[in-house]
């Protein structure tokens, strides 16, 4: 049986590697030094790598995270709680969420000592 011949490919058009970035609005519920808990209105793929950008007290903070869990909240409609773990892909800088968190932890420890 003769196999149908494939259509000749247009040499002017070829596939290339790309990165598609999709943005999701989230609400930051809480944070620890290793990760944060987010609330969103859509399911996120576990294991996906993402970049989070939040504004706290007028400061824009960013960091790279990996989605570790995504749990629907029963009775809350399309609401999901998403656990994200910080990825140490970038050094601690002033604009990173991790450094802001460390500063907040320091203030908290000082308050407890007083």
């Amino acid at each position, binding site marked *: 049986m003769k196999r149908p011949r494939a259509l000749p490919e247009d040499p002017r*058009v*070829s*596939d*290339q*590697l*790309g*990165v*598609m*970035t*999709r*943005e*999701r*609005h*989230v*609400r*930051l*519920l*809480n*944070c*620890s*030094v*290793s*990760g944060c*808990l*987010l609330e*969103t209105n859509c399911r*996120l*793929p576990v294991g*996906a*790598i*993402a*970049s*989070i*950008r*939040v*504004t*706290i007290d007028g400061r824009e903070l*960013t960091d790279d*995270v990996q989605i570790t869990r995504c749990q629907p909240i029963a009775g809350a409609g399309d609401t999901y709680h998403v656990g*994200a*773990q910080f990825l140490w892909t970038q050094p601690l800088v002033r604009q990173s969420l991790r450094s802001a*968190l460390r500063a*907040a*932890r320091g203030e*908290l420890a000082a308050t407890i000592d007083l």
Partner: protein
Amino acid sequence: MKLHPARARRRGTFLAILPRTGGAIIATPFRLEVTMLGRRSHIRISLESDAEGVLSIARDISVRTTGDGHLVAISRDAAAIGERVRVLLADDEVTLVAEVIESKPVICDGAVRHRLVMRCSGRDVVSSNRAGGRQE
């Protein structure tokens, strides 16, 4: 079930071991605790005011550009019609802002993938900060 106070304080997941002995399954009286990464014991800081933000999720895709300003991509994930995404073309080192106009599943090398057709609606200035980018 009443736990010993010392055990009740322990965190983690307990697994019962069920070894087979002589055809019968007997639960052993001891349990193993699966070691966690320890992140659950870290102090959590709750935010008094809501901190709104944006999560940018990146996925590798195979993409080709067509002459009429459309992008045809093969992705692992489906996309919603009308969704706006940013597409970084690795060869051209340019980031495009596009709107999904078609998404349908296809078979690629025996695996289910999604063919996305997108209409370009703008171009981003390439920036070292992946989270940011100005739209022209």
